[in-house]
């Protein structure tokens, strides 16, 4: 069965129930629970070292590849326990975009054909799907005349949009974004932000960011993580308005007010 019929479809809710990530004896994050409604964008904010990226990597099981890493708790996509999915099937449904743009050192078009080929999408469909993904991220008109040039020749912002297109080409239903704008200049950052805003409704989005203003602009809900002792934890998960205007937890108020962090 093609990836595009197996994955795709309407976005599911993403539910984390008591998720913990440990690296040997060190606990990166403990007992994290949150719920992202279908098609919503949740921003995950908090100081460095509070386990935000570890939490993302627990969702698509990237953490499993780290020596000594143990993940506990339950991750659900809609009604389905993600642990029941194979790693490939899970990562087809849950795309990921990283902090640094990291296109493969292949041509622009091959960056999109490659994952499709890996997931056995028929050859005749690949170029159509690649073009669609490039259109979805607003990159088609910028690169249509240099599809066979190296992806590394693109600007930083274009590379990051290509990476988003690479994640989207497999038709995931959930997208994990790990500080997708933090390595970009302000202009590119704004373009990527607009792109992320346009993805809301079609994908369930969980975005790590240090930029509170960005979280305020983009997010429907915000989860605040904090470090207690040497262990990360979730202190509050609420709507964007609630977190920024009437936070329930004093740490949230102090962090969002810029008093700590």
């Amino acid at each position: 069965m093609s990836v595009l019929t197996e994955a795709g479809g309407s976005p599911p809710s993403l539910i984390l129930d008591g998720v913990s990530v440990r690296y040997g004896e060190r606990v990166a994050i403990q007992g994290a629970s949150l719920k992202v409604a279908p098609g919503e964008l949740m921003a995950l904010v908090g100081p460095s070292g509070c386990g935000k990226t570890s939490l993302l990597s627990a969702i698509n099981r990237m953490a499993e590849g780290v020596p000594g890493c143990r993940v506990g708790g339950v991750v659900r996509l809609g009604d389905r326990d993600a642990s029941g999915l194979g790693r490939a099937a899970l990562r087809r449904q849950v795309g990921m975009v990283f902090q640094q743009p990291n296109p493969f050192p292949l041509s622009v078009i091959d960056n999109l054909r490659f994952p499709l080929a890996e997931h056995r999408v028929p050859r005749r469909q690949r170029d159509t799907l690649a073009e669609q993904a490039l259109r979805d991220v607003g990159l088609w008109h910028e690169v249509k005349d240099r599809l066979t040039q190296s992806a590394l020749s693109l600007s930083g912002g274009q590379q990051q949009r290509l990476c988003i297109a690479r994640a989207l080409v497999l038709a995931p239903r959930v997208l994990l974004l790990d500080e997708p704008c933090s390595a970009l200049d302000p202009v590119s950052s704004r373009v990527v932000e607009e792109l992320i805003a346009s993805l809301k409704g079609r994908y369930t989005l969980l975005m790590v960011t240090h930029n509170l203003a960005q979280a305020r602009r983009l997010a429907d809900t915000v989860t605040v993580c904090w470090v207690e002792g040497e262990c990360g934890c979730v202190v509050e998960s609420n709507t964007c308005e609630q977190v920024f205007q009437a936070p329930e937890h004093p740490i949230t108020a102090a962090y969002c007010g810029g008093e700590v962090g």
Partner: protein
Amino acid sequence: MHRSDRWAAALGVIPWLLVVAPLMLLLAALWQQGQDALSLAFLLEDPRRAGRAGGIASVLLSTGWILTVCLAVAVPVGLGCALFLSEEVHPGSAMARRLGFALDLLAATPSVVFGLFGYQFFAITLGLGFSILSGGLALSLMVLPLMIRSTEQALRGVPLSYRRAAEALAVSRWGWVSRVLLPNAASGIAVGVILSVGRALAETAVLLFTAGYVLRRPDSAFDSGRALSVHIYDMAMNVPGGTERAAATALVLVALLVSINVLIRRLVRRPFAGVV
């Protein structure tokens, strides 16, 4: 240009001279000694009168055979071992330390020891005798540590961000290795191959023990054959009046090394891999 910048530029020439000058001196000395013997006929004719007359065609042919056997074994085995080390063995682990120690020990082993082992194992035990096959296989054992180490370094140098992107897309192990890892490490791997070729072409002791030194053209890989380095040694040390032809052969050897170096570098100079 500022005065201090001019000084810095002038000083920068010194290391360049220190590297290039010995090479130039060596080539000049070889050219002076061997230029009269060099001609097209020298390359195309077989040696006569123990090398005092004729050319080095049969020696070139034997060298090509030996090098082919050596690389046919060393490149795939070296690549496989390096892939295992870079993909499966965690750097700093006990296994990495043990394997690293073994490789360093092998790399530091004198070539004459490989020659003795090659003679005992390939020529006697496996019954291959003094042959191109024995020589090529013994040489491949000798260059393997170099090939593995340089390839491993090239593979470990591929950015981690590519690996993470591939993992996030659930790219298969084969897809990762064939489409991203190897194309990106190609220039580093090529350096390993070039160094191995250089070491194999320059080797004499191993081949004296295994490939022999008969001057006739080999009919097959089971025939004995004389490599360029052995021919240079023999002409310079054992054949009265052979110095000029030894120098001419050395010039051919250097030209061969440079050509192989340029060829391999051109082959791997690709900014990105082909079409999916």
